[in-house]
């Protein structure tokens, strides 16, 4: 098998088990340079877990994960800064890599929060904090960006602008992006490849293919499906409570 130079991270039948319960299993996906791969799925479907497998945060995993880059930018789903640690935005920006002041300013202005540079992280609103997280992740010009619900808490117009920014970054830096998102419209318009999770991979493919999928419809409801696709196809399995697959 030849190694494609564009591949940044590759999961092969990967899974992770915690306290004898599978958080996710059987996930295969590839993130390539300049491509956006989006993970969708309901709460507890293993999206964040899959991202953490790809990032190498979870080490005792099933299956294989191959990572071909160390230049990684990560926006975790949840970051809480303890009060005991006084931290300004400018301190947070250089957390994992030393950056020049211009690079910090540039990244902060891209996400629209340059004015918050000297503010304490604890005093930011949810949306502001999210913008800072995104700025930090892109400031180091990574090859691989992993964004776990990067626009949660951001106002509506800001949300659209940030998704446009994410798209632009993937083109300009030619970096691969693994995105976790709830916003199906954005997913469908900005994404190259969609992986629909529910404890396992329900379906995957181009946004259009996934929208046509019956599984997708079951997960996201009739309406989401109708807005995106008029097609259906027969699904071959249903889900138990634990997210296991039962063949019809």
């Amino acid at each position, binding site marked *: 098998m030849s190694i494609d130079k564009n591949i940044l991270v590759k999961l092969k039948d990967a899974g992770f088990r915690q306290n004898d319960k599978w958080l996710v299993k059987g996930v295969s996906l590839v993130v390539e340079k300049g491509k956006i791969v989006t993970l969708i799925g309901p709460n507890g479907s293993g999206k964040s877990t899959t991202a*953490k497998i790809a*990032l*190498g*945060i979870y080490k005792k995993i099933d299956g294989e994960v191959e990572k071909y880059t*160390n230049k*990684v*930018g*990560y926006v*975790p789903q949840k*970051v809480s*800064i*303890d009060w*005991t*640690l*006084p*931290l*300004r935005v400018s*301190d*947070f920006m250089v*957390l*994992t*890599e030393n950056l020049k002041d211009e690079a910090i300013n540039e990244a902060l202005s891209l996400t629209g929060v340059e004015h918050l540079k000297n503010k*304490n992280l604890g005093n930011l609103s949810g949306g502001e904090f999210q913008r800072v997280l995104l700025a930090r992740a892109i400031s*180091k010009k990574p090859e691989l960006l*992993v964004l776990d619900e990067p626009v949660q808490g951001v106002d509506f117009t800001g949300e659209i602008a940030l998704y446009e920014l994410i798209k632009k970054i993937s083109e300009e830096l030619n970096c691969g992006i693994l995105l976790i998102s709830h916003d199906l419209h954005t997913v469908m318009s900005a994404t190259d490849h969609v992986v629909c999770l529910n404890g396992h991979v329900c379906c995957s493919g181009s946004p259009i293919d996934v929208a046509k999928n019956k599984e997708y419809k079951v997960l996201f409801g009739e309406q989401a499906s109708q807005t995106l696709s008029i097609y259906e196809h027969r699904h071959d399995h249903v889900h138990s409570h634990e997210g296991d697959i039962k063949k019809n």
Partner: protein
Amino acid sequence: MFDDFFIRALVAGIGVAFVTGPLGCFVVWRRLSYFGDTLAHSALLGVTMAYSFELNIAVSVFIISSVIALILIQLQKKTNLPGDALLGLLAHSSLAVGLVVIGFLTFIRFDIMGLLFGDILAVTIDDLLIIWIGGGLILLVLKLIWKPLFASTVNYELAEAEGLNPDRAKAIFTILMAAIIAISIKMVGLLLITGMLIIPAAMARNISDNPKKMIIFSIIGGLLSVIIGLFSSLEFNSPSGPSIITASLILFILSLLKIKQSAHLKN
């Protein structure tokens, strides 16, 4: 100059304060104060070992504390007991075993109070060398692991994801904790070492808006505590360790005024 016991104590205390300042900030940030206590309690065992085998006290305390830290990490992996119960188990059992061993070593006269609360009279030129050279090494290593340690203190997963190897930094930090306890045990005594780590850092938090400032204020707070504490110990003939900690408590109380003030300004 170092002939005078008081000068020796002062130089020793200043050396210790330079190291406990930054380490104490990490102890507060990473919520390790009980962990520090556990290592300090186990130091008694290290002291008895030093007397039994005629080793240097700092060296044998360092060895025992490191071993206890390693045992703790193993127990955390292998048992389901919560962290604080494990820490309590190790802290008190190592203290108890230490005291039992002392009971057996009847041929040696122990100054238990000195061990528990510090003894400035006991600081020798050798101790000064250990404090300043050991302390310098601790600070050097801390500087080397600063990036991964600090990043993982803020968010472990971010540090891990972006390739900083936080587990290694944490292991090294644990060793540094054992080392600072080893070099400061004569100054403040094993029951009060954690106070020397966390009280100046807590004081510094009240008057800082960024991590570097907090470390600098923590060092200054530690230095002031040592100087005020030792002078008052000389003046009032009070035990050195408790005097130093009491001085740091007074500084902490003063720093609370600053918090009230800035809260007032905001409103």
